[in-house]
């Protein structure tokens, strides 16, 4: 197996130490951080994400791959800074006001970060004003909203309204996710995309930023 294949396997298995060792070794060999992200980390997450979407792997497998990706990224951070690596975009995300659920959002956050995005995860029960202020302050290109319960879907609509009130609708892409959401609901509230899972979120973010999928 090549080092790339070993790295992809380590990430899929949630082998944090193995991931760190392989990323460090690839850096040592002179591979660029961007290559390591795209050829290793993102490839691994795409494999796991696709399997998850197709019902071949489940929450534990998604989580350990996402966490392993995070450990790999930590090793890359100094090299990324040194090479003036430009992240693909800034994503502000949160579970909307009134909702305390976060596991799906956390997987999306880890996946987008591993995919080369700067992710500002504001946590749970986040008021619309805070999400929009952060989008403005950090010049985010994507706002990602999550909810688990039907009654907090109104908070999603409220957040997009607040975004529009700040003059940012159309300038910032909005993606939503969570079990009660649908594509129809996304259209109704003015969101740009509704993702079924972290894999779809990454694919769509890449479409928006012109990155290769």
């Amino acid at each position, binding site marked *: 197996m090549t080092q790339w294949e070993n790295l992809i396997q380590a990430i899929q298995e949630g082998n944090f130490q193995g991931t760190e060792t392989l990323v460090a070794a690839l850096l040592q060999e002179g591979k660029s951080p961007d290559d390591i992200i795209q050829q290793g980390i993102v490839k691994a997450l795409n494999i796991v994400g696709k399997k998850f979407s197709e019902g071949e*792997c*489940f*929450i534990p497998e998604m989580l350990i791959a996402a966490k392993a990706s995070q450990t790999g990224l930590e090793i890359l951070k100094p090299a990324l800074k040194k090479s003036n690596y430009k992240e693909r975009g800034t994503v502000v995300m949160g579970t909307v006001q*009134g909702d305390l659920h*976060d*596991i799906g959002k956390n997987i999306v956050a880890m996946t987008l970060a591993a995919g080369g995005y700067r992710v500002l995860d504001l946590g749970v*029960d986040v008021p619309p004003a805070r999400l929009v202020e952060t989008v403005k302050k950090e010049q985010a290109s994507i706002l990602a909203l999550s909810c688990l319960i039907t*009654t907090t879907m109104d908070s999603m609509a409220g957040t997009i309204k607040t975004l529009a009130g700040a003059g940012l609708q159309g300038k910032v892409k909005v993606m939503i996710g969570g079990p009660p959401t649908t594509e129809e609901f996304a259209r109704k509230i003015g969101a740009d995309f509704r993702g079924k899972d972290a894999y779809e979120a990454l694919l769509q973010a890449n479409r928006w930023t012109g990155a290769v999928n």
Partner: protein
Amino acid sequence: MSALTPRERLLTALKHQEPDRIPLDLGGFVSTIEAIPFDDLKKYMKKKWETKCFLRDHVDIPEELLVKFGIDTRYVRIKAPKKWKKVIEADNSYLDEWGTRWKKTPSSPYWDPADFPLKNATIDDLEKVPWPDPDDPGRTEGLREEVKRLRESTNYAIVADGPFLGVFEACWVCLRGPEKFFIDMALDKPFVKALFEKVIDIQLRIMKHYLEAVGDLIDVMVVGDDLGGENGPLISPASYREMVKPYHKKLWSFVKKNTNAYLFLHSCGSITRFIPDLIELGIDIINPVQVAAKDMDSKMLKKNFGDKMTFWGGIDTQKVMPYGTPEDVEGEVKKRIADLAPGGGFVLTAVHNIQPGVPPENILRMYEAALKYGRYPIRI
């Protein structure tokens, strides 16, 4: 067929025979109405009933409404332990007896776990945790006498509500937190096993006291453990078999040995891939039959498992009940009856509790349609 008593009706259906009509259920921990839609219903019906709740916002349905709807079940449940009191704090949160913090935010109608007592625990820490006292007498104080009175003075089917969450759900939802626990499932199996051992020991003792009090007086015993999500199982069937199933076997075989009641498993989501295991473990009934989830088509479920499994639930609460017209609700009831009722083995109720936002007209139409179309032989 001449009218059966509610108890006879339910037991006939559970034996996979056709009674006079489909048995109807309302009022359990997983089949009641939440306080907000109940208040809406009261207003609509111009009734002055008290909105009395158990657990969190789960309504104790007034007897008058149960009779009006033709409900065949009556629920009994374990009581609160003496050593624990619900104390709601300034931030609208409280600690349950296991140490989980539950919180209701201003814009949510639900109490949700907000902090987890074992979120940072190591395997050694599990010995030092202040676990609930499974022998607390408060749980069953006076219970036997109450259930005996219900059994002797009525002919309703008596359902013993589940005394706790299933071992898997208790650990990821309440004790450890979802992210940590699902990672443990993959990467720290010794921790998961040690935690499951602790929890199941406590649960077995609680169940022992519960069944000593009511085991010979009940028709159905409820246990629960959510294994599915909207789009599929939460964990792989292989993980389930390796790590969770042995503990389900421990608890459920204990129940089977200590009561003749039918064993009812509440398990949300897409759980089709687990059903053969559940049958093997002696589950007689699955609930809520989340028909909107992946691979949970009611026709397919009946065809593949209907000879061995009773389906209890089935009326969609994700789209039809909240967003449909009363005519849509009637259509939904007809469809599920046609799919699940032939041959018995079906008890009709909503898929889980009726939620805020469900119009009162829809609740009324659900039970009206169930009575209208639920006579055997089914002619839909």
